């Protein structure tokens, strides 16, 4: 009886796994399929995952929409600029966070933790007022600053982990050779941090590229919209906007994030598992 039950366990596990795969993967497959269906097919009552004919024109349509391309440009500007700023600012700070003890470290770590549970709704109102006073609402510069500020805690956390992995001895050797702290940082620490910087940069880029709430509150004129905002204006009037191009535009918007995440996948899962492998 027990052997029989054990023989059933594996198939049951595969059935469950298949269920998960369908649940997690099907929505994206459907979006991709909708992006290559003609509007006639999308509105017909025949519902199938594979399109009757591949209608690539949706992608051309999506790209031909003025708003979509220019807002993708805005998103790229904001994401690249805030990523560069985050790395530039967080790199030195992460070094201090990892190497020094005492009040600075405690305050830094505490703030990073709090920022993970930050009530953005409470912050966004005064933030809007502050940025309006200095004329930075409805401006990409303002959004860049905001994205920089709100991506930084996690970037700091990632980076300081990489700093902590660099043996202190290496730095001390550099110091003995006559370099002062900044020279040691530049010559020894930062080069060793390169992989960590790449991973953190990808994370920052994705955070900013995907971000919706601050962009919604801060940007008012359509020429400043980022990609998520423009996409969101296309819905609502689904009758007016053809579903096919909307799906195509959504697929295009998701590509950078998915690509970066797949590259980081090993780091995201692997980082946690590193300690477990020994077990």
């Amino acid at each position: 009886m027990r052997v029989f039950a054990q023989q059933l366990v594996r198939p049951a596990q595969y059935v469950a796994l298949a269920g998960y795969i369908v649940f997690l993967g099907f929505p994206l497959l459907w979006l991709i399929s909708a992006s290559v269906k003609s509007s006639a097919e999308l509105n017909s009552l025949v519902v199938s995952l594979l399109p009757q004919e591949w209608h690539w024109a949706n992608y051309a349509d999506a790209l031909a929409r003025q708003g979509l391309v220019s807002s993708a440009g805005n998103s790229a500007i904001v994401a690249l600029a805030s990523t560069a700023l985050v790395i530039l600012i967080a790199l030195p700070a992460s070094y201090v966070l990892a190497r020094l003890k005492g009040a600075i470290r405690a305050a830094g770590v505490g703030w990073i933790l709090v920022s993970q549970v930050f009530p953005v709704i409470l912050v966004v109102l005064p933030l809007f007022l502050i940025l309006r006073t200095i004329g930075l609402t409805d401006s990409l510069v303002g959004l860049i600053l905001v994205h920089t500020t709100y991506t930084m805690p996690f970037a700091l956390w990632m980076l300081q982990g990489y700093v902590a992995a660099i043996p202190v001895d290496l730095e001390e050797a550099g110091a003995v050779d006559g370099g002062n702290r900044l020279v040691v940082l530049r010559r020894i620490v930062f080069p060793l941090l390169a992989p960590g910087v790449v991973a953190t940069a990808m994370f920052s880029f994705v955070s900013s590229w995907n971000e919706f709430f601050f962009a919604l509150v801060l940007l008012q004129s359509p020429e400043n919209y980022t990609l998520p905002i423009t996409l969101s204006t296309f819905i609502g009037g689904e009758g007016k906007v053809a579903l096919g191009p909307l799906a195509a535009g959504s697929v295009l918007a998701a590509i950078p994030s998915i690509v970066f995440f797949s590259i980081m996948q090993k780091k995201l899962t692997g980082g946690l598992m590193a300690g477990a492998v020994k077990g």
Partner: protein
Amino acid sequence: MTAPTTSRPPARTPRPGRRRAPSGLDRARRREAAALVMPSLLPILVLSVAPLLMGVLLAFTDAELVRRPDYQFVGIDNFTRLAGNSFFWDSFRIGMIWAVAVTLLQLVAALGLALLLNSGLRLQSLTRVLALIPWAMPPVVVAIMWRMIYSPNAGPLNAFLGSLGLPDDINWLADFSTALPAVIVVGVWVGMPQTTVTLLAGLQQIPPELNEAASMDGAGAWRRFTAVTLPSLRPIVTSITSLNFIWNFNSFSLVYVLTEGGPGGRTMLPMLFTYLEAFKNRNIGYAAAMGVVLVVVVVLLLTVYLRSQFRDDRVETKKKEG
């Protein structure tokens, strides 16, 4: 909103015993540290600490979102008004249902997937990549995608139900009774990957000897799960559940794009409600008061939850000692 909590930093290497540096050098090092930290401190202070404090202050004013704002302190007027605002408390109740349901379902679904991924099946790498996709996608795209899945006419969900002979004309996101459950499913889909990855890492840290020993004592799979796996995962479950709850309670973009709080306010999460009060009705003082109430309640709930977890832990250790 987007920040994952994985990629834990590797353990810090203990420093070799060093003699204390002379205080002059100490001061120089401290100045150096300050110089390195300053660039990141500035935007934090101006764009995140200051707004938080101002937000709390705003809650006690009658500020409105106009060009030349003219505030007056009104004491706790906003809060007394809020206490009698039944729309706000309706929205609060919906927010609690949403956050609790999504958090619990995420935990159960993610635990199931993590256990499967940890039991040496094939297709693991495919599943792992798939499991990360919801995490990576922009929330707006997620919402657009699920609107298509739920579409009443040409949506695959209704088509599937129809093929089973079930009713196939449900307007999932527009029907009063199905809208909230429908957005909860999307919330689970979005948040599952992160929880799975975290739990999987926890599972892999359980020493296999524990399970083997339990096996030898004749414990079946279920018994091993409740006696070995669950207790070992407990700290991770507690922390990921707390974080998920806060993230879910604070969530905005997904539901804003899916339903904008409709139909008839059935999916009006408190964050949406507050946002509309601030930027559509332009009452930022009143909206700030809502924000304060939401934060205070979440902090209180979390304290109660974490304390009860902590107490259980102590009781258990006592039992073991006794």
